């Protein structure tokens, strides 16, 4: 920009300062007083804008300034400010259009330059900060490098020291070992030396002992003695025995027996232990097999060697299990088989567990697995089953509840009476039955009363008739007697007989008297017996009793008929106190005489029931 120098206008000095304000920052103009002044100035724009703008071009130097501007612009490539001159002499006219265009162009350029300047400035700032940062990093890294170098040197130093120490210690150890070896050698040599010495000394000692022994033996024969008051018996009560070969052999036998017993005992213990351990191992094997068998499907899908052996093992095992008895032997092959099989199973189990572990870890990552599927299926199946069960149970409960409700309803519909009746239904039945029986009984009682009355009347009649008959008989007998006594005294026996007979007839009378009264009374089912007894008693009075017989038979018949009825009636009656008492057994009474027994029984039995009371 040397053009500034050519246009030296004193008036421009102050104004051009302002112009240069805009451009001085980016353009490093050569050193000139003028420019320095301009740079140093710090005049604010607003005050001197007009002065600034007017400083360049004033009223006087318009043409100069225009030509100057035109020169500048054309050198910058702008079109000329002047219009195209027609001639050389005439004054060139200012082309305002060109001026405006140039101004516009200049403004645009000015803007561009400002933008570029801003960009450049920001970039400069950035670069400056980057530079600072890099410089600081560089400084830090340098420091770090320094420190690490120092550390490394320190560590190397330490390492070296430790290695030295190590070497020293190794050396010491070697020395110690050598020393130990040396000492051991010394000890060994000393030991042999001492042993020799000791043996020598011992031999001397033995010699001395021998001599002393001999001397002592010679001396003490008289003095050594044992005084015992009386002998103590032997432990096993036997006498002392001589030492013979037999006893020696016996001792040997005993010794061997003891040893053998001990060995056998120990062997038994060990066998027992072995058997137990084998059992445990076999159990373990079975359990391992059972653990592994549900996973049979998987090994079939996969083609692993380990699982292949697993299948083969499982197939083998049923065959092996059948030979379980062989396990009890303790031979080498069996033992090996057992241990090998257990080892195989254990390996399979281990690999299985490892697989499971891997899968579990995968699950955490992936979230889905074959294992899960299987377990979920099982889970679902189980839940379905449980739900079915629950439903069934619920239905059952419902039905039961319904039934209970029905029952309750039934219970609540009845009245109180009926409920009480229902509750006491059984009692009522019994009560009714009792009532029936009571009525029956009362009827029977009435009947019996009637019969009794009739029988008593009959008896009275009979008695009266009998009296009359007896009177007749007596008169007849008298007549007979009067007739008879004219013949013999020999017939006094007959008299006695007659008296006896009469006595008996009297008895019979009494009995016959009593009989009709007794007849109306009931007899138990033993009535045929009674009748037979009656018939037995009846022949006692053949002549006079015929009448009685017929009468009694008649009465018997009637009584029998009555009697036969009543037992039948009494049979269904099992309730009621009196009915029970009416049962008799005639045979239970002791029978003394034929004639009297039945009557006695009659009387005794009748006294049970009879209210009238017989004599």
């Amino acid at each position: 920009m040397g053009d500034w120098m050519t246009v030296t206008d004193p008036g421009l000095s102050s104004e051009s300062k302002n112009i240069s304000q805009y451009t001085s920052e980016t353009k490093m103009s050569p050193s000139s007083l003028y420019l320095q002044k301009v740079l140093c100035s710090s005049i604010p724009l607003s005050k001197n804008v007009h002065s600034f703008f007017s400083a360049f071009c004033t009223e006087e130097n318009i043409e100069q300034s225009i030509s100057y501007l035109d020169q500048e612009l054309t050198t910058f490539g702008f079109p000329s400010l002047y219009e195209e001159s027609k001639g050389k002499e005439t004054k060139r006219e200012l082309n305002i259009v060109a001026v405006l265009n140039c101004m516009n162009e200049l403004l645009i350029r000015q803007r561009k330059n400002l933008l570029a300047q801003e960009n450049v400035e920001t970039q400069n700032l950035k670069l400056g900060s980057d530079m600072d940062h890099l410089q600081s990093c560089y400084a830090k890294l340098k420091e770090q490098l320094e420190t690490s170098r120092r550390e490394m040197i320190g560590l190397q130093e330490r390492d070296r020291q430790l290695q030295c120490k190590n070497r020293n210690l190794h050396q010491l150890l070697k020395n110690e070992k050598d020393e130990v070896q040396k000492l051991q050698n010394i000890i060994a040599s000393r030991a042999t030396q001492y042993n020799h010495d000791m043996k020598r000394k011992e031999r001397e000692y033995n010699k001395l002992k021998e001599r002393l022994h001999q001397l002592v033996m010679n001396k003490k024969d008289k003095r050594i003695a044992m005084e015992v008051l009386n002998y103590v018996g032997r432990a096993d009560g036997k006498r002392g025995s001589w030492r013979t070969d037999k006893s020696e052999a016996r001792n040997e036998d005993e010794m061997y027996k003891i040893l053998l017993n001990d060995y056998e005992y120990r062997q038994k213990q060990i066998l027992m232990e072995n058997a137990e351990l084998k059992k445990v191992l076999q159990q373990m094997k079975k359990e391992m097999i059972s653990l592994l068998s549900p996973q049979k499907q998987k090994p079939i899908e996969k083609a692993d060697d380990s699982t292949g052996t697993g299948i083969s093992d499982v197939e083998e095992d049923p065959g092996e299990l059948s030979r379980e008895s062989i396990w009890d032997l303790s031979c080498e092959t069996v033992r090996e088989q057992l241990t090998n099989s257990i080892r195989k199973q254990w390996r399979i189990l281990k690999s299985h567990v490892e697989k499971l572990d891997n899968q579990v870890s995968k699950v955490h990552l992936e979230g889905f697995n074959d294992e899960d599927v299987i377990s979920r299926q099982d889970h679902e199946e189980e839940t379905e089953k449980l739900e079915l069960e629950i439903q069934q149970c619920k239905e059952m409960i419902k039905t039961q509840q319904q039934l209970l409700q029905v029952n309750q309803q039934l219970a609540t519909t009845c009245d109180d009476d009926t409920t009480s009746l229902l509750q006491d239904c059984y009692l009522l039945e019994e009560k009714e039955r009792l009532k029936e029986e009571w009525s029956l009984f009362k009827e029977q009682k009435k009947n019996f009363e009637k019969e009794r009355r009739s029988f008593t009347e009959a008896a009275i009649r009979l008695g009266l008739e009998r009296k009359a008959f007896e009177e007749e008989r007596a008169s007849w007998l008298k007549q007979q007697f009067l007739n008879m006594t004219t013949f013999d005294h020999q017939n006094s026996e007959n008299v006695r007989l007659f008296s006896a007979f009469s006595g008996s007839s009297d008895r019979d009378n009494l009995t016959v008297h009593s009989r009709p009264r007794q007849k109306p009374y009931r007899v138990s089912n033993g009535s045929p017996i009674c009748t037979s007894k009656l018939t037995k008693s009846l022949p006692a009075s053949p002549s006079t009793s015929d009448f009685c017989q017929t009468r009694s038979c008649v009465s018997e018949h009637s009584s029998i008929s009555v009697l036969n009825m009543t037992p039948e009636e009494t049979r269904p009656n099992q309730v009621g106190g009196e009915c029970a008492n009416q049962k008799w057994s005639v045979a239970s009474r002791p029978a003394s005489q034929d004639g009297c027994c039945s009557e006695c029984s009659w009387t005794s039995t009748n006294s049970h029931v009879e209210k009238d009371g017989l004599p």
Partner: protein
Amino acid sequence: MYKRGLVQVWSLEQPEWHCRIDEGSAGLVASCWSPDGRHILNTTEFHLRITVWSLCTKSVSYIKYPKACQQGISFSRDGRYLALAERRDCKDYVSIFVCSDWQLLRHFDTDTQDLAGIEWAPNGCVLAVWDTCLEYKVLLYSLDGRQLAAYCAYEWSLGVKSVAWSPSSQFLAVGSYDGKVRILNHVTWKMLTEFAHPAAISDPRVVVYKEAEKSPRGALGRPACPSFRAAESKYEIAAVPVSLQTLKPAADRANPKIGVGLLAFSPDSYFLATRNDNVPNAVWVWDMQKLRLFVVLEQLGPVRSFQWDPQRPRLAICSGGSKVYLWSPAGCVSVQVPGEGDFQVLSLCWHVTGASLALLSKDHFCLCFLETEDEADGAIGQLGAHT
């Protein structure tokens, strides 16, 4: 009476019966009964010979060349056999005699440098033989003299100090100078496990009982009870971890106080009681079912001896004081021995039935009776004493 060479025998049932054996100039070093109680074995001076005196036949037998060692005679539990260690021409032999007629059954040599002890297994079929403490070697021989097994835990160090069989003959406990007990099993004669005796116990499952004085102190700080009567003591349970008192053994003296010196199995083989000599105040009780440490009892003084009750798992301990200590799985108790003066319990011995205990001091002995109120208690009800 060793000095006079006399042995006097009395009968417990017949007080008039009396027997006197005079060894005369042969001298007497040791004397013991035979298991049938009818013979007395006397060991003469310098272990010249063993004389077997028979009380029933008044006959005498001699056994030559017995070995002078820690435990040279062992009777089998059923009393049938006697095993005797002998040494001829610098070689060790073992002779087995039949006790009924003192016939020699077997005579075999052992593979030991210097046999230190022999012991029958309770089942009477195996004999354990161990070597001198300079060499760790345990040999097992069968009744008929065959060697069944040999066991050596380590070399170049002091070896076996004590050996004990379990009553069931299943275990052989070998205590050695390195402070460990090794348990061998009777089937393979190999080591089952080893029990170490560290001075610091840190296992929380172990119960540690510490004996503590419970003497009430007077205002002036002197014990309230008179000085001639020893103070009462009781057991306290110490919380784990516990460190026990140790003793540093003098390394340049013979018979150093290190290693497991005392071993005893309980009669049911459930427990093993041990004493490690460099922790002299403590008794260690091991559970044989679980094969680990069960209980540690720490006394105030060094433990002198302990013995299990022959009938039940009850351990009686004495430590040279005037108390006897009893431990059972139910608990432990310390009992003062009543008596005038200071009764120093130096050793103890149970009766076969386990109902009484003999406490021995230098020239007195005390008999304890144990009355249990109920079986489940397991502790002493009352104590009776006679001197």
